[in-house]
C-alpha cells in the first residue's frame, strides 16, 4: 500500500513560532472599531463627555458647576442602582421586568416592618433586603429550573409583586416627617455631605461603589466570567463545566437584593415610603443598559457602560430642563439615543478581533 499519509511528510520543516504579521496601515476608523470592540463602555463614555461639553457650552456655569453636575448624580442614583441589577440579568441574555416592583415592595416592607410592627429600623431594612432577594430567587428559580423565558417570568412577577405591594401596604404612605422623627435610619441614603460646591448623598456613594464592585467582580472573578458565558451560549457553558442553574439563580437573586437597596435609597430620595413610587424604574433601567452598550442578546457589554448610560440620561434631562425646553424633547432625544446605541453595537460587532 503506498502510504496515503505520505503527503504529510512535506509538513516537516514548517516554521515553529507564533505567527506575526505586519499590521499594515489600519485606517483610523478600523482602529476605532477595534478599540470599541475591546472596550464596549467606550461609546457611552464618549457620548457622555460630548453631551456634558455641549450642555456646558450652551449653558455655561449654570450647568458646568460642581453643584449641577453632582445634582445629576443624585437624580440618577436610583436608576443607576436598579440599572446595575438589570445589567447583570441582561448579561445572562435575560431581562428583569420586575426590578421596579421589587424595589417598591422592599421599601414598603422596610417602612411597614418598622412602623407597623415596631421593629428597630435596622431590622426593618434587613427584612426589606431579604424580601428583595427572595423575590429575585423566585425569578431565578423559575428561569433556571423551570426553564421559563425570563421575559414571561418577570412580567408575571412584576404584576404579582406590585399587587402584593398594594394589598400589603393597603395603599398607605408613611410620611416623611414621621420617618425622620422616629426612624431616620430609613432615610440614610438621602443624607447629604458636601465637598466644596459638590453635594453628594450616601445613595450616590452607594451607586458608585456598587458599580465599581460589580465591574471588578464581572471582570476578575470566576463567577463574573460565568455570567458572561451563560449569556453568550448557555449550552456551551453547561458543557464546559459551568453550573448554569446556579449562576442564573444567583444573578436574579443578586438583582433582587440590589433592587431592595434601591428601595432603601428611594426612601432617602423621596423622604417617605410610598407604594405608588418608582413606577418608571423598569423602563428607565432598561434604557440605561441599552444606551450603555450592553447587548440585549447577552454576553456582551459592561456595567460601567450602564453607569455612563444612566448618566447620559441624567445629563440630557437636566441640561434640557435648564435650557427651558419642553420635557418631551428629553424623551425624544433619549429615544434617538437608544436606537443609535443599538446601531453602534451592530457596527462594532462586525469587526473581527
Amino acid at each position, binding site marked *: 500500500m503506498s502510504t496515503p499519509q505520505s503527503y504529510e511528510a512535506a509538513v516537516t520543516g514548517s516554521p515553529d513560532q507564533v*505567527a506575526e504579521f505586519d499590521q499594515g496601515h489600519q485606517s483610523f476608523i478600523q482602529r476605532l472599531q477595534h478599540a470599541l470592540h475591546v472596550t464596549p463602555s467606550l461609546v457611552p463614555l464618549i457620548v457622555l463627555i460630548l453631551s456634558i461639553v455641549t450642555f456646558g457650552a450652551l449653558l455655561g456655569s449654570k450647568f458646568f458647576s460642581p453643584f449641577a453636575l453632582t445634582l445629576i448624580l443624585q437624580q440618577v442614583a436610583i436608576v443607576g442602582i436598579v440599572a446595575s441589577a438589570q445589567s447583570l440579568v441582561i448579561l445572562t441574555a435575560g431581562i428583569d421586568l420586575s426590578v421596579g416592583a421589587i424595589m417598591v415592595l422592599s421599601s414598603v416592607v422596610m417602612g411597614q416592618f418598622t412602623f407597623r410592627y415596631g421593629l428597630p429600623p435596622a431590622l426593618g431594612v434587613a427584612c426589606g433586603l431579604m424580601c428583595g432577594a427572595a423575590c429575585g430567587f423566585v425569578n431565578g428559580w423559575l428561569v433556571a429550573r423551570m426553564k421559563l423565558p425570563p421575559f414571561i417570568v418577570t412580567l408575571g412577577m412584576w404584576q404579582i409583586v406590585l399587587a402584593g405591594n398594594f394589598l400589603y401596604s393597603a395603599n398607605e404612605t408613611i410620611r416623611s416627617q414621621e420617618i425622620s422623627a422616629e426612624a431616620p435610619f430609613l432615610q440614610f441614603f438621602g443624607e447629604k455631605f458636601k465637598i466644596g460646591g459638590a453635594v453628594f448623598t450616601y445613595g450616590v456613594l452607594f451607586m458608585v461603589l456598587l458599580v465599581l464592585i460589580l465591574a471588578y467582580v464581572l471582570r476578575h472573578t470566576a463567577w463574573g466570567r460565568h455570567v458572561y458565558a451563560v449569556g453568550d451560549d448557555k449550552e456551551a457553558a453547561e458543557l464546559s463545566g459551568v453550573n448554569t442553574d446556579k449562576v442564573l439563580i444567583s444573578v436574579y437573586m443578586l438583582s433582587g437584593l440590589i433592587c431592595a437597596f434601591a428601595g432603601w435609597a428611594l426612601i432617602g430620595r423621596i423622604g417617605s415610603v410610598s407604594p405608588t413610587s418608582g413606577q418608571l424604574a423598569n423602563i428607565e433601567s432598561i434604557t440605561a443598559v441599552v444606551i450603555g452598550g450592553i447587548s440585549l442578546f447577552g454576553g456582551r457589554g459592561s456595567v460601567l457602560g450602564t453607569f455612563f448610560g444612566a448618566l447620559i440620561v441624567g445629563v440630557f434631562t437636566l441640561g434640557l430642563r435648564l435650557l427651558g425646553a419642553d420635557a418631551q424633547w428629553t424623551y425624544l432625544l433619549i429615544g434617538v439615543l437608544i436606537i443609535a446605541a443599538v446601531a453602534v453595537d451592530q457596527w462594532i460587532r462586525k469587526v473581527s478581533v
Partner: protein
Amino acid sequence: MEPILKGRGLVKRYGRVTALDHCDFELMPGEILAVIGDNGAGKSTLIKALSGAVIPDEGTVELDGKPINFHSPIDAREAGIETVYQTLAMSPALSIADNMFMGRELRKPGWRGQVLRQLDRARMETMAREKLNDLGLMTIQNINQAVETLSGGQRQGVAVARAAAFGSKVIILDEPTAALGVKESRRVLELIQDVKSRGIPIILISHNMPHVFEVADRIHVHRLGKRLCVIDPKQHEMSDAVAYMTGAKEPEQEMSVA
C-alpha cells in the same frame, strides 16, 4: 482485563426518534477506541450519555466497575472524563484563555485570590499558550483573542487542547479533526498517541478512515443507535469497516459479541 468505562443497554429517545437503542459500550484501560458510523447513527448521543451531557432513558454506565449517575457534564469532569463535543462548547465572546479554564479558573495566590477571589490571568494565559504550542497551533497570535474571531479549525484546536490538558481518566473526542488542516490533524493524532502513552484511554469519533486505522486499537462500529460490532484494525480492511457501518455487509457472528 476489566473495562474502565462500560455502558449497558443504553437507550435515549428524542420524541419519536430513537438515538440510542439498547447500546452496549466498552472502553479498555489505556486503549484508543475509535467509534465510527453513519451520520445520525447515534455516536454523539452515545458519548454524551457517557459524559453526563445526556441522561439516558434506560441503561447503566460504569466507571472502573462502579455504577455512576452523572447528572451533568460537571460530574463527569470531576470524575476525570474530559470531552471535546462536536459543537465544541465554547463561549464565542470570551477569550481563548477564559474558555480553556472555564469552570476551573485559577485564582491568584494569597489574599487576593482567597478574599477578593481574583483570577490569575497571567498564569492562565501562560498555560493556555503552552497547551496551544504543544498542539502546534502557532497561527493563533493572541491568546486574549475572542474565540469568535478564530477560524473553525483553530477553535477545534483550542477545544482539543483543553481536553488534553485536563483529562485524567478518559478523554472523549467527537470528530476532533473534522475542520483541521493537514499539519494540525497530524498534531492531534500525535497528541492522541501522547495521551495514550500517559496511560489515559481515548474515545475517538471520526469519519476519517485512514486516521482511525492509523491510531485505533479497536474500532466500535455504530449503526442505527447501537453497537454493531467491534473490529480489530490490524485484521480488517478499511473497506470492511465502511461496509459494516453502512450496512452493505453483515459482520460475522463472533465479532458482534467481541
